[in-house]
Structure formats: C-alpha cells, structure tokens
C-alpha cells in the first residue's frame, strides 16, 4: 500500500509543481487565446451516467439548423438518422416527407442523363454549395461541415480541471460536453454591437460567421421560449446528437457492462482469495 500511496504522492507533487508554475512558465500567450474566457458548463440532458437526448429539444434544434444554419453549413448525415432510436424521434413517414422536400441530383439514368429527383430517407442532406470553393467564393470562407462540429471543437480545460473531467463524479467529472458548451457560448459571444464578426469566445475573437441567431428568429410550435438562449441550447444539443448519434445506446450498454464487471471483479477477487488462502505470501 505504501507503494501506491507513494505513486499518488509523487504524481500529485509533480502535477502540482508544474501546474502552479505553468502561468509563470508560459512566456507569452499565443495570439488570440489571450482574453477568451472559458465557456460555462451548461446542464445537458445527455451528460452524466444516464444521459439521454431530449427529443423535443432535438426537434427544435433541427428546426433552427434547417432554417438558419443550413443556409451556409453542410450537415453530412442521411435523413434516415432523424428517425433512428436515440435521436430526435421523427416517425418514418415524417422522415420520408422531409426527405422528399429536398432535391437530390442523381443519375445517370438509362438514357445516360443526370437528373433531379425528390430525396429519399437513405439520401444525405444536400450541401448548400456544390463544393468548398463555391462556398468560399460566396461567403469569403468555407463554413465547417456540421456533422462532427460538437466533437471537433474544444477549449483548454487546464490543470486541475482536466483531471476531474475524467472522474466519475456527477456534476464535476465525466465532462464530455466541451463542444456543445463552446457552441452555446459562441452563439452568445457576439457582444460588440459595432462588429458582427467579433466573438468573445472564439479563439482570436475574429469569426467569419456574423451573428447568426437573434430572439424571435425561429418559430417554435411546442411553446418553448423563442429566445437566443433557447435557440443556441437547442441547436447545440442537436449538433451533439448529430456528432454522436449512438450516445444513448453507449451509456445504456455502459451501465450494464459496469454493473457486470463489478460483479465479475468481486467474484474473481474472492475466488483468488480462496485459492491463495492456504499459501502465505
């Protein structure tokens, strides 16, 4: 036991020493990271041990995406996923009807011609621009594709937060929602009235996307408040689902696996004790 205690002690001492020294060690902040504050941790229905997506929230988030974000941002997922278990919970007919409202370029047909047809559930959301170059020409920059945005953006957690993030402490640890929190923060970060491309939370503060959302911009039919705060939360949740559509099944299976492993580990431990009970060691 002394052995393990020592490891813990030494590791803690090194981490503490390095981390305390780190503000001193860092000679100058890289440009842009300087004043960007860390986004606040939001409450998400999909965080923690038992997290599940809030279906009405995902449906609202999808509406925000469809009416606002999709004008510039591609979302490379197939329509069918909107009806999959663990998602926004659209019915099969709703998904088919939605898919049919999109035009898909397909072909060639038997005559050798390309043609347009209504979308099917197995089709992917068509991109708003035919290629990245066209997007850059129209908008000045290529808007990132959105299917993984909730997992591909991050902000530095620093010491000791990054240690706690990994631990099974509800509310403090199991922090896997850095991306959604940053999306939420960025949508709230347009704090300079005179500069629509200035964002408090965006690295470097200069963001190519001008303020995309404002109060009352999207109509909600389920009575949820039509505020920027609600929009950004809903769309961040929707993007979290789009990035990790298997989150619900992962946490559900995980719970069973953990319970099973504790049982197995206990049994193996006592069986081992029995085996060794007649040997001094």
């Amino acid at each position: 036991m002394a052995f393990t205690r020592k490891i813990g002690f030494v590791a803690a001492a090194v981490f503490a020493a390095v981390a305390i020294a780190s503000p001193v060690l860092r000679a100058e902040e890289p440009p842009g990271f300087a004043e960007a504050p860390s986004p606040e941790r939001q409450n998400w229905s999909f965080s923690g041990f038992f997290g599940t997506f809030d279906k009405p929230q995902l449906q609202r988030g999808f509406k925000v995406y469809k009416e606002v974000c999709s004008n510039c941002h591609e979302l490379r997922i197939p329509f069918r996923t909107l009806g999959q278990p663990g998602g926004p919970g659209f019915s099969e007919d709703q998904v088919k009807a939605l898919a049919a409202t999109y035009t898909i370029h397909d072909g060639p047909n038997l005559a050798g011609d390309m043609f347009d047809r209504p979308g099917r559930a197995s089709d992917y959301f068509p991109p708003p621009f035919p290629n990245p170059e066209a997007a850059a020409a129209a908008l000045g920059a290529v808007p990132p594709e959105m299917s993984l945005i909730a997992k591909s953006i991050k902000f530095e957690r620093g010491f000791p937060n990054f240690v706690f993030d990994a631990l099974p402490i509800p509310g403090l640890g199991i922090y896997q929602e850095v991306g959604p929190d940053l999306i939420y923060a960025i949508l709230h970060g347009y704090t300079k009235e005179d500069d629509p491309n200035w964002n408090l939370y965006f690295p470097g503060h200069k963001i190519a996307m001008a303020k995309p959302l404002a109060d009352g911009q999207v109509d909600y039919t389920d009575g949820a408040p039509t505020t920027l705060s609600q929009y950004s939360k809903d769309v961040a949740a929707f993007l979290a689902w789009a990035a990790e559509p298997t989150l619900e099944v992962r946490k559900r299976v995980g719970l069973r696996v953990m319970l099973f492993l504790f049982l197995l580990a206990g049994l193996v431990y006592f069986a081992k004790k029995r085996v060794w009970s007649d040997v001094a060691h």
Partner: protein
Amino acid sequence: MHGLSTFEPKNGFVKWLEARLPILSFAHGSFVAFPTPKNLNYWWTFGGILSFMLIAQIVTGVVLTMHYTPESTLAFGSVEKIMRDVNWGWMLRYAHSNGASMFFFAVYIHMFRGIYYGSYKSPREVLWILGVIIFLLMMATGFMGYVLPWGQMSFWGATVITNLFSAIPLVGDDITVWLWGGFSVDNPTLNRFFALHYLLPFMIVAVVALHVWALHVCGQNNPDGVEVQDIHKDCVPFTPHATMKDSVGIAFFLILYCWFIFYIPNYLGDADNYIPANPMKTPAHIVPEWYFLPYYAILRSIPNKLAGVIAMFAAIAILAFLPWLDTSKVRSGKYRPIFRIFFWIFVASGIGLGYLGAMPPEGGYVLAARILGVVYFGFFVVVLPLLGLFEKTTPVPASIADAVLARTGSASSVAASAASAPQTKG
C-alpha cells in the same frame, strides 16, 4: 525451469498426440505447473493485463479492418460510417482507440515495475531487451494506427513524425520522400501505414512469445529480488494461483478500460482529429497521443533539429542498456533506500515531461523540459552507475520463503495448507 507437477496423460488420444506433437505437455508445463514465486504482488499482474490487451486490440482491429477503407478520400468517412452505421461499430472503434491508451498505460506500469525491482538484471537481460523491442513495435503500431482515421491530427502527426527522418544528414530528405511515397503525406503513405499497422501487431505477438520464452527460462523476478532456491518452498504453481491473481488484475483493469469506452471515450483523443485531414491547414497545436508526450517534450526542448531527434530516440534506446548501466549487486529496489528516492524522481520526471509535451513549446516550458530531460537521462547515465558503487543497501533475505516468513510471521508450506484445508470445506 522444472515444473511443480508433471503431465501424465491417461487419455488414449492425448497419449497419441503427445507422441507426435507434445503441445499439451508443453502448455501444461508453461501455464499450469510453471513455478511462480509466491511473493509476487499485484504489479506483476500487468504482464497478464498486457497479454489481454494485445489480444483485445488484435480482435477489435481485425473486425474494424472489415469496415475501414485505407484510401485518403474515403478513410475519414469510413471511420464515421463505423461510428454511425455499423452494428456496434461505435463500441469497437472506441474500444480500439482507447485500447491503445490502456495498452500503453499498462506497459508503462510494467516497465516501471521492472525498473523498481531490478527485473532487467542478470540473468534477465535478454528478457528485458525483448521487452524494449516490444515497446518500440508498440510505438510504431500506435503511431500508424493514429494516422488511419485521416483526421487533422492524423495527417499532421504523420507529417511531423515522418519529417523527423529528414534530420538525418545527407540522405534525410530522400528517406522522407521514400517513407511518404510522394512529396508529402498522402494516399501512398496512408496505404503503407495501414499495411504496417496490420502487420506489426503480429510481429509483437512473435516477440511476446520470445519474451515469455525467455521469462520461462530464467523464471520470474519477484519483489524481494532473490532467485528461487527451492521451488517447493518458494513457489506456487502458475495455475490456479497466478492465473487467478492475473484474472483479478485483468478484471479491475477492465473496469477502468470500460469506463473510458462507455463514458469518456473522447477524453484521451484530440478534438482536431474529428476534422478531416486538410493538407493546406495546420492545427494551432500539434500534440501527439498522450503516451508519446514525454519523448515529444524531449524532442522539442532541444533547439537543434538533428540533436532533438537523436535525443528523442536515445531516450527510448537507453532502456536497452539498463542491465549494464545499473551496477548494483542488489536487485530489488525494496532493499535499496537511495535508489528508491531516485526512482521516484525518475518517475516524476517522466510524468512532468509528459505534461510539458502537451504544453506549447515556448518560454519556461522549454526550460522546464530541458531540466527534466537532464533528470531523465541523468538517472540512467549518472545515478544508476554510481549508486551501485556507493549505496548502502539493507539486508536481503536469503530466500523467498524467508522473506515471506519475515513478513507474515507464519511458516508456510504445502503441508500446512493441507492441514488447514478440511476447515475451509463447509
């Protein structure tokens, strides 16, 4: 080593097979009757844990290969398809990517354990060097595997690491072009990395077989660092004793592993790797996977390109010389009070270098990495050679049985256990 029991086939088929291929008696001798020092602690279960992880990585990897496409325009999408569409694909992929981290976590503990208890000392030098080769193969495999998803960090990690070879004088640039199969990291690079990523694990299996063979020739070291004198007094049979103890280690390790797979699967990965590779745009901070960070810190702490690369490779290569750098006659750190202090400083320098490897290469971080780099190398080239000459060690027990007796205060023998056995039967 002679076993604790003999294999006597009674079954006719087994006798027939034994006369032609004595594989069953070999397996019995190696994994059942094999004498295991009875004073082994739980740090010794990491060998079993590593075997388990090697098999887990190969099994999940082979299945993932069935769904993965090693082509630069399709690779990223095929990994996302695994995550979204393939049945249980998300679990296999997270198990494989986190499995790599768990594998390295276990191997580092295994190595530190070997250093603490002097497991590399005569007659186990070859056993130790085979371990260093396995570690090198693991690093190559882990690095190439990280390239396969073809995200931003895959691409730029591959670019940075392959550029290390351009530091070689005269032929460096040619070698780099040869490694790439082009003038930059591109589809040919991805293809060959995939081929090698599939090949190397089986080479690891082969070297592990040699590692286990060497282990079975010399027998296991143990926490007291004294050789086995009487297998009946000092040892227990591998099965069931060591197998059960290893199972406990594996079961608890699985809890940690599954915690990562199911609850924090992206904790150890880099967010940038969820952005498809873009050869025209470098991420703000290029950081390797955590298990390479200490070496990465050493590389960056030296301002000269060639010297940095040499220092990084030397940090790994020096491990192979450990049996001859450590001059102490006493094997186990348990009886070496001064060594113990330096050992923990060494561990701390490794962890500290790991932390610095993740920080931006600027200001005080570089200085701190230099200091810790000196500590790291100093342990091998200054402390270990000199300690053996000057350190006053504490008395080493005459045998494993004596060591156990001194600790538990009770005689232990098979006879005693036989006497106590009836009581345990309810």
